[in-house]
């Protein structure tokens, strides 16, 4: 799914290269913290390189594999809260509340 240069992140692509916020958020809720930690530790050092790679293409005509890489970065942002802030998947004191995305820019 990912460009050749990012084969090291390929193991995460299947699970985390997701096009919509809803998919990213529900995956976060369903994933144990250690697994998110592994993804976070693998992708953050590569984020700068990934952005530089994606920048080579016009933003509104990204090739398929660059688009998957971009979605992987979105998931990196999503898991940054459980890893850096909450140390658990859910937002503390958010109980059963949800806040569902119904529109977002593409890509």
């Amino acid at each position, binding site marked *: 799914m990912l460009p050749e240069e990012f084969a090291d992140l390929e193991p995460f692509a299947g699970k985390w290269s997701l096009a919509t916020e809803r998919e990213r958020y529900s995956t976060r809720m369903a994933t144990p913290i250690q697994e998110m930690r592994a993804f976070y530790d693998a992708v953050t050092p590569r984020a700068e390189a990934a*952005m530089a790679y994606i*920048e080579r293409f016009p933003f509104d005509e990204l090739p398929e594999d660059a688009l998957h890489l971009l979605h992987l*970065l979105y998931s990196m*942002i999503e898991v940054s809260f459980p890893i850096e802030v909450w140390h658990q998947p859910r937002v*503390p004191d958010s109980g059963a509340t949800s*806040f569902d*995305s119904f*529109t*977002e*820019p593409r890509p």
Partner: protein
Amino acid sequence: MARYPKPPEGSWTEHFGLDTAPVSYADSVSPEYYERERQAIFRRAWLNVGRVEQLPRKGSYFTKELAVVNTSVVVVRGMDGEIRAFHNVCRHRGNKLVWNEAPEEETQGFCRQFTCKYHAWRYGLDGSLTFIQQEGEFFDVDKDQFGLVAVHCEIWAGFIFVNVAREPEQSLRDFLGPMITALECYPFDQMTSRFGYRTEVKANWKLFMDAFAEFYHAPVLHSKQSPDKYSAAAREAGYEAPHYQVDGPHRLVSTSGVRFWEMDPSSLKPMENLTRGGLFGPWDKPDLGELPAGVNPGKCNPWGLDSFQLFPNFVILIWGQGWYLTYHYWPTSYNTHIFEGNVYFTPATNVRERIAQEMSAVTFKEFALQDANTLEATQLMLESGYVERFPLNDQEVLLRHLHKVVADWVNEPAGVPA
């Protein structure tokens, strides 16, 4: 030791002529009061239902469910480019005219005309009845008399407002008043990259608006959001807004910005450094050109944001960093409402801008989730009635104003109070 100068009266609360005694929230736990609000406020005030960008071309439409006034509205751009609004009811047998999968769900799209799913009556985009199936079978039905029932609809700065009153007591501009219309030239139309979120909150709509009308809670409720160093400092300093303003039923709080990205990295989250985005928005500020005088009327320097709270249920929050949010609180009962948060940026032209926007939108959602749940806990306890009077401080002046204006409208059902 207030950090910012108080008005001459010594406090913002007294400056706006508001009472300083403890308040009651009886207006937020009573089904009867909610029914009176529906009549005296939501059936009379101008309600924002969307933006013109949602109707990009002739034939574009969207529907809006307005449970609080017992109707569904369809908003459409006609062949003449005009934007109109109609009650979403077919004139033949009262079926809901515009919906697709589920009648109670909002929908949007594009069409040349509206066709009722029940008996195929057809209406033009101007609401006129253009076709009746087997017209001859009817008894002198004059199509001109059976067009869609119009809803008053006016646009301001690209925001589409509707008013379900037979005759609105004020034009939209008069209703908005000078403090709000002074924002007219803000480049809302350039900021079309939109992240929209929606949820049902089990709390009265006013109580959730209260939560967004004061930043006194920020250092505490959201303290875990920022690294301990930053939140400890914020908690100690407490929260003070440099400027409050009131104009008719609407109100504003402006905050002093913290150029936090110039702070040492340890008080920032790693992901904020990496994406150059976060709660305060993208670090790289888009060039929006000359901003209208209505923005930052308190001339705060540094300036963080303006939170314009339009009566009854609409907030426009403009960040100095060049992005803005809107909140809507759509009541569905005395202790439930639909909360909608929209985040708007100038469209990202490259991946770094898009990543900074994603981080800012994700951060907004994390904060909002904490507020929603805490408010449900508050609603529960206010309904218990064991404690009835609650103190408000000078940083909570806008709460007093909201509840007072609601009371004024509810107690003055006839004319709109000055």
